[in-house]
């Protein structure tokens, strides 16, 4: 994008700046013996014309950026461009003067003008240098603005991705089903309905809160899972049972927030919910050496209908651990008979409390 032509309102001031320069040139011509009228007739068109010619400085400025190519080459490129611009200018102005010479008022203007040729060339080079500097300045300004915009866009993208991942972590159908249970309890057991509203609110509030921090202690993550399971228990009753086994030192290790949520959700949706008599979800966490190991295990119906969405949650967990720990994290999922087990392992790091 041309830093002057591409912006409305820049070309006018730029060309206006050349008018006083025309005055200066007129003075030069006057010294060379031209009348005021002749000097003005030559100098002002001359100045504005050069203003236009110098707009082409953008091309060498763009290709010869001092950030990208050696300084010496920038100088030579610009020197050649300056010389060419000045010569072109001189040629065009000379043509204009020859034309004027046809009028009796401006008779023998050519001879007076030719005395100024070296001066005009010198002025042309200096003016070109000034305009090139202006282009560099405007381009740098534009680049800074662009960088700022890119940074903002990136931030927006990151936030969107975060929201998307949060959405992926909490299944909206869980909410619909929970609301349906509450709707049911309102009629039969208002006290239980109120308790369930509170549990649901607690889970949602906590998941929103931890979702914004980069990592939380495993103990907190498990407490969150427990709140989720408490809501699900209202739906499934005795069919859903949960067992925890977490060592204290494992509990203080850092985990990406809500990383277990998709696994626990799957354990309910594709596991316990697929069995007529339900079953037990087992969550265990151990620290062995410098590794943290978390296991989520659930029974499932190997002969049940294939349900949609299997694998999405697991992929989500895999992706998040890969982002956080790179190749140091491992996710292994296994089916053994009627049991589905996911084993996670990543380097144990103490959680930093916010």
């Amino acid at each position, binding site marked *: 994008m041309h830093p002057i032509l591409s912006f409305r309102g820049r070309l006018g001031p730029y060309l206006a700046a050349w008018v006083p320069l025309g005055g200066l040139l007129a003075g030069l011509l006057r010294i060379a013996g031209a009348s005021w009228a002749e000097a003005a007739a030559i100098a002002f068109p001359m100045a504005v014309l050069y203003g236009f010619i110098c707009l082409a400085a953008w091309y060498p400025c763009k290709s010869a950026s001092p950030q990208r190519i050696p300084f010496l080459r920038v100088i030579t490129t610009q020197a050649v461009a300056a010389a060419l611009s000045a010569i072109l200018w001189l040629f065009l102005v000379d043509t204009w003067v020859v034309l004027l010479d046809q009028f009796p008022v401006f008779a023998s203007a050519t001879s007076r003008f030719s005395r100024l040729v070296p001066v005009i060339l010198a002025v042309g080079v200096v003016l070109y240098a000034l305009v090139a500097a202006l282009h560099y300045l405007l381009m740098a300004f534009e680049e800074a603005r662009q960088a700022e915009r890119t940074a903002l866009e990136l931030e927006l993208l990151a936030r969107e991705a975060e929201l998307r991942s949060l959405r992926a972590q909490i299944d909206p*159908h869980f909410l*619909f*089903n929970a*609301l*349906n*249970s*509450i*709707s*049911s*309890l309102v*009629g*039969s057991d208002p006290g239980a309905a109120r308790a369930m509203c509170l549990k649901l609110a607690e889970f949602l509030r906590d998941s929103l809160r931890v979702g914004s921090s980069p990592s939380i202690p495993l103990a907190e993550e498990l407490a969150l899972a427990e709140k989720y399971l408490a809501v699900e228990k*209202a*739906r*499934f*009753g005795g*069919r859903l049972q949960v067992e925890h086994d977490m060592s204290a030192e494992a509990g203080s290790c850092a985990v990406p927030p809500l990383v277990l949520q998709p696994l626990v959700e799957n354990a309910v949706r594709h596991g316990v*919910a*697929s*069995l*007529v008599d339900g079953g037990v979800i087992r969550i265990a966490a151990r620290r062995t050496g410098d590794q943290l190991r978390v296991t989520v295990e659930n029974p499932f*119906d*190997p*002969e*049940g*209908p*294939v*349900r*949609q969405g299997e694998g999405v949650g697991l992929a989500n967990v895999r992706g998040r651990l890969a982002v956080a720990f790179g190749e140091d994290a491992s996710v292994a999922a296994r089916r053994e008979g009627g049991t589905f087990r996911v084993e996670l392992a990543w380097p144990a790091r103490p959680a930093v409390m916010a």
Partner: protein
Amino acid sequence: MGEATRQPPLRVAIVDDEEPARSLLRELLAHADGVEIVAECANGFEAVRAVNDLALDLLFLDVQMPGLSGFDVLELVDRDVAVIFVTAYDTHAVHAFEVYAVDYLLKPFSAERLAEALARTRRRLGRPQPALTDALATAQPVQARLTRLLVREGPSVFVIPIAKLDVVEARDDYLCLRAEGREYRKQETLAKLEARLDPARFVRVHRSFIVNVARILRVERYAKDSHLAVLADGRKVPVSRAGFARLRTLMRGS
């Protein structure tokens, strides 16, 4: 409610694996006129039995249930019954209307919405309905490849994982499925079943036979242009000329 025309009450069954979901429907239906709840089922197996044993007019049917899904239930019943699906998932709606569901309630729903569904059911029951089995037949192609077969014999329902299926034989107007040394009857055509089986594992070896390739021990020549496939359990299945060609291409391919 004034002088509503007296109709016999709708005989209704509620099918949902979640107790709160059932009790919500029970409570809301208790306030509705002309509805009699004759059964509550906590899974698809109970639902199949209820539809076949009790003369039901209407089924409130959850989709995702342990063992048998709501759609599986409809595949297993041969009695005409109006169906209102009740689920938290809007993704099943298209499939639901393909099996001529009267309505599709999204959890949570209001009493007004339920009343609307009941009104719709009453309007629908007055008119002749397309047979459910025909509807299911047209709905099948949408479904993915079969992973299991559902068979009902009298009051009991059998779920046969596809890997355990040995042979399918077409008889008069039904199919005879053999799996784990047992035989099951299923109301279906061989062509329709074949279309939904994995062609890499099941081959139509004969006009009336589909065989699980993994069960074939060897193929014997029987007469000119005809063979016999000997299965792992010692039984023999006729193989036609075209069937033999299909078997050969499959064996070479793998």
